[in-house]
Structures are given as C-alpha cells and as structure tokens.
C-alpha cells in the first residue's frame, strides 16, 4: 500500500526522528536526552508500520520506547544516589 500520503507521513516522521536524535545527543539534561531517545524509537516503530512490518513495530514500541527508557532511568537514579 503506497500512496502519496504515506510518503508525506514518512518524511514528517523521519524528520521528527532526526530532530529527536539531535536533542538526545546535545541536550544538557540527561533525563530529557533519555526521553528523546525513547521518542526516536517510537518514530522508528511508526516507520516500521508504514513499511508493512507490524511485528517489528510492536516489538520496537514495547521494548525500544518502553522498557529501555525504564532501564535508563533506573540506571540514572542509581548513579545519582551514589553521587550524593
């Protein structure tokens, strides 16, 4: 299923993913950077859906933007507790 609408949607989602990636690399607050990296995963899962791969989209949405963000935050809190 390929229409012009799909292509426009892919361009918008892809540009958003790149913007979130730049935020994830350059933002000074670590928590914001972590959330931005989760958003990159979410945009990637929408791209997988457009590329007709629903299995991969489900996995990426559950693991990439769900569990990995939780893991990052746990690690961050552990490091911060050690520093104090």
């Amino acid at each position: 299923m390929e229409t012009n609408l799909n292509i426009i949607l892919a361009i918008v989602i892809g540009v958003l993913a790149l913007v979130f990636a730049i935020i994830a690399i350059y933002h000074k607050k670590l928590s914001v950077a972590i959330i931005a990296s989760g958003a990159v995963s979410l945009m990637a899962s929408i791209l997988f859906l457009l590329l007709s791969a629903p299995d991969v989209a489900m996995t990426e949405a559950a693991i990439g933007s769900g569990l990995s963000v939780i893991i990052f935050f746990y690690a961050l809190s552990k490091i911060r507790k050690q520093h104090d």
Partner: protein
Amino acid sequence: MIKKLTFLALIAGFGYMLWTGLAKYNAAESLNRISSYYAQDGLEEVGAANLVTAVVVTYRGLDTLGEVSILFLTASILGFFLVSGKGPKIPLQDSSEILKTASKLLEPIILLFGIYVFINGHLTPGGGFQGGAILASALILAYLANPKEGINKSIFRITESISGVVFILIGILGIVLAGGFLDNRIIPVGSIGDLISAGIIPIIYIFVGMKVGAELTSIVTNLKHSPKNNVE
C-alpha cells in the same frame, strides 16, 4: 578543534561509503529464492499464517535459541555485577492510593493481553518476544505501585530455567519424531488460520514468552536501587 574536524572527516567518509552503497539501490521486483520458498511451500510445511513467526521459530529456530541464551547471559551478568556491591540505604517512599488501586485493576488486563499476544503469535502480529515484554511491563507496574514489598526473584529464576529446558526438550523431540531440531511437525499441522494449528509453534511461543518476560523483569529489577532485594 582539529580533533573535531578529524571526527567530522571520519563520519563524512563513512557517510560517503553508505551513500555509494545505497545511491543506486532499486527495490527488487519479486522475492528472492529463499523468501519465495518460505512464502510458497512454507505455508504448507509449517502452517502458520504469520510468516515472520514461521521464520523465527522454525526455519531460524537456532537463532532464536541463541538469542534467548544471550538474554539469559545478560541477565546473569547483570545480577553478578550489580548485586554484589552494597548500595547506600535509601528510604523508599510509599506510592499513592490512586496508583495502588489502578494497578490492581490494570495488572490482570495487561497480563491477559500479553498472554493473548503470545498465544496468537502464529495468526496475528505478535509472538513470544512482544508478549514477554508486555508481561514484564505489567510486573514492573506492580513493583512501582508497591515499592516496599519487593519482588521475589526466585520465582523468575525457576520460571526462566524451566521454560528454557522445555524449549530445548521440544527441539530435541523434533529430531526424534520429525525432520530435525525444532521441527514443528511433531503434532499434525492443522488448517491455516485456526488457533490450534501450526504444529508445536504456539507451545514453543508460550515458553519463549514466559522466558523473555522473566528475563526482562529480572534485568530491570537488578538495575533498580532497592536495598531490600540485595540482601535476599
């Protein structure tokens, strides 16, 4: 400054390599030989409506076994690395009443959805890995709602070991009763599209789902900073 310019040149070189590889890329008009074999004869051989599941569980079953063992290794290395150190004692705050009540309401629904996802893995998008991730998220919600209770880790250890052993036993049973390791034709392949079809695939996916869920939960619980669980 010179350092950054060097890095930029490195990245630009790599980008040029990628560009030369991808600039003239044209999508193929039809499937290649292996994929068309999977799509044509695989349907009758395996009987799974979801071809990705057929590839993951049967044709590339050894890859899945290796992946599951990598996850197991990761979980055990994490436990080895993080539990040994004595962290500072942190007083845990109790969560609010609203979150507790809502988590009691939500946990059964999320668990049921995870089980649905991995039982229907051969019919609809989904399968053991996605279902396991959903189960793990339900268990993490349970922990977040009641942080003082902690999680009994031995249950996860036992679930994980039993599921892994059953997975390999089913694979060996495939050598004895059917064509090879992890062959799914131990029990007859039903008609495509039924819930009980595709031979042994739903049973394998149930165990893969339980194993992945237990492993992901133990990874996350090893990373959290609860002093109570470090003692255990």
